[in-house]
């Protein structure tokens, strides 16, 4: 793994189930993902792209092979190391996963609070700023139940970005957004890569944003079948 790489995957295999029901989902995947790049994982349903995302996002235990994320080997890493590492990451989920009891501002504040830095007033101000960047200045105190699907997704994006993570993992982040909003969000992620060196790994089927990717990796049946750079 070179210093220019945020993620290095070597000989990664992953299985689900046990004994006779055991099924291999990832087959000998090897990858290097450069710091500050925007990488898109594509492939049909069941191709293993989400499993790969959760493995390199330290949300799932590595069974075979090696995953280095931000200079840390994930295989057999203690839970405390994984917790500390997750704080350097940002996650954008397809289903938003906003906390229904928290306002938009409070949901974004949760992205800052995990670091324990700054008081509530500063965290609130930073969250307002971030929500402004995603176009939600007029929805700061709205509960998720009172926001549209696109607005919820933008809150989720603001929550992932507010703490300036080193790596962002996104699962269909533009699925609930119109073309303009979707492209705007992805441009923001790309800009973060250029300005701050933030690495983004994104699972998507959205052809509208492919042209913004630095690299497109396609998986089929758990194997990498193509690895291209459209730019």
């Amino acid at each position, binding site marked *: 793994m070179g210093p220019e790489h945020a993620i290095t995957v070597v000989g990664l295999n992953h299985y689900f189930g046990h004994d006779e029901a055991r099924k291999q989902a990832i087959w000998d995947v090897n990858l290097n993902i450069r710091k500050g790049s925007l990488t898109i994982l594509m492939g049909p349903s069941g191709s293993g792209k*989400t499993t790969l*995302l*959760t493995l390199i*996002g330290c*949300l*799932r235990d590595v069974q075979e092979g090696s995953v280095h994320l931000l200079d840390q080997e994930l295989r057999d890493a203690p839970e*405390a190391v994984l*917790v*500390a*590492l*997750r*704080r*350097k*990451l940002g*996650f954008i*989920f*397809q*289903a938003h*996963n906003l*906390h*229904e*009891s*928290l306002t938009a501002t*409070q949901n974004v*504040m*949760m*992205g800052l*609070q*995990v670091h324990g830095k700054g008081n*509530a007033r500063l965290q609130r101000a930073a969250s307002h700023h971030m929500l402004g960047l995603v176009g939600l200045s007029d929805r700061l105190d709205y*509960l998720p139940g009172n926001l549209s699907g696109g607005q919820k997704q933008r809150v989720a994006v603001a929550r992932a970005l507010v703490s300036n993570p080193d790596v962002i993992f996104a*699962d269909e982040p533009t699925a609930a957004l119109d073309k303009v909003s979707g492209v705007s969000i992805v441009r923001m992620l790309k800009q973060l890569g250029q300005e701050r060196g933030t690495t983004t790994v994104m*699972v998507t089927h959205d052809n509208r944003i492919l042209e913004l990717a630095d690299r497109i990796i396609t998986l089929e049946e758990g194997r990498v079948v193509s690895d291209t750079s459209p730019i």
Partner: protein
Amino acid sequence: MSRFLTWLFGRLPIGWLQLSHNKTRLAAALAGVAFANLLVFMQLGILGALNNSTVAPYTLIRGDILVSSTEGDTLTDSGNIARTRMFQALGIAGVKSAVPLYIGTLPLSMGDGTSAALLTFGMDTAQPEFAAPWVARELDALNIESTALLDKGSRGVSASVFERLERGEPYAFEINGRTMTAIGTVDVGGGFLADGTLVVSDQTFLRFNPKRSGGAPSHILINVDDGASVQTVKTRLEAALPAESVKVQIMQDAAAADLAFMSTERPTGIIFGFGVLIGIIVGIVIVYQVLSTDVADHLKEYATFKAMGYDQPFFLGIVFEEALVLAIFGFIPGFLASSVLYKALASVTNLPVEMQAGTAILVFFGTLAACTLSGAIATRRLAAADPADLF
């Protein structure tokens, strides 16, 4: 509230926000905790009344040592002891004085046909040092035949009777077909064994209890010489008196032993103590159900927080914060409702049921402990929050 809790915890009060988000569920949860509090308070209140009414008669008498029959269980539920034991005791070094005390229950009948069972204390009017000062002042008057001091806290006796007595007007009533005249009052209160208390001279007591003999009082009260060790005199008395039929107790120990007997050996004490336990269990179950359901409903959010790097203490903090909110906001209505019911119960039964600060504090911290325990059990469900399931 949110801002205050944010300041208090140094983070967003997720637990409070979760609970207050679903107001119907929160109201139901608080009603459940309040109900459990009410159960515990009522049991403790009645248990307290039992304890208070057990030791209240001790406020009538004074003495260093109480000598009783081993057949008796408490001061007011005693056997008879031979008066010769008193004369034996007077021969023991360190014994200054001794007096017989007669206790029995008499049925009071009033002009309007109502009746009450009164615990009657027959006291030696010539030795006022064995009576509480407020009783001793009235003892001279009790030398008149068939006169008594009537308990102001007696059940079944009209308030107008006591108003008359306060004005100095005697009140005549009937006991076993004979006339007794109340000439003053005492304030002991009703209990579980009797409706109230009557204080009379030992002679009047024997007159109204023809089956009782002056030679067989209920207890013997003993005072020790000035400067003598009560414990030493007690030891001497135990050595001199037959242990198989006589028990010798220091007065404070006797009251404590009565309390222990009523709490642990009488069905009433055991039943109400068991009631307290049931109330606590009901509270724990209710809070566990609320917290457990809440954790299950928010597993996806918790998994998201796990993915963001929040650690286990953070999640435990949320559950315990919810437990704290339920404990505090459930206790308040439980306490208020119990206070009202205490007053109603005391008014109807004349039992000394009253809200004590100590009881309220005990129940509050008990509620906190029960909610914390419920929270601790509910946190086991947190393990099911797997961030890998989010994608």
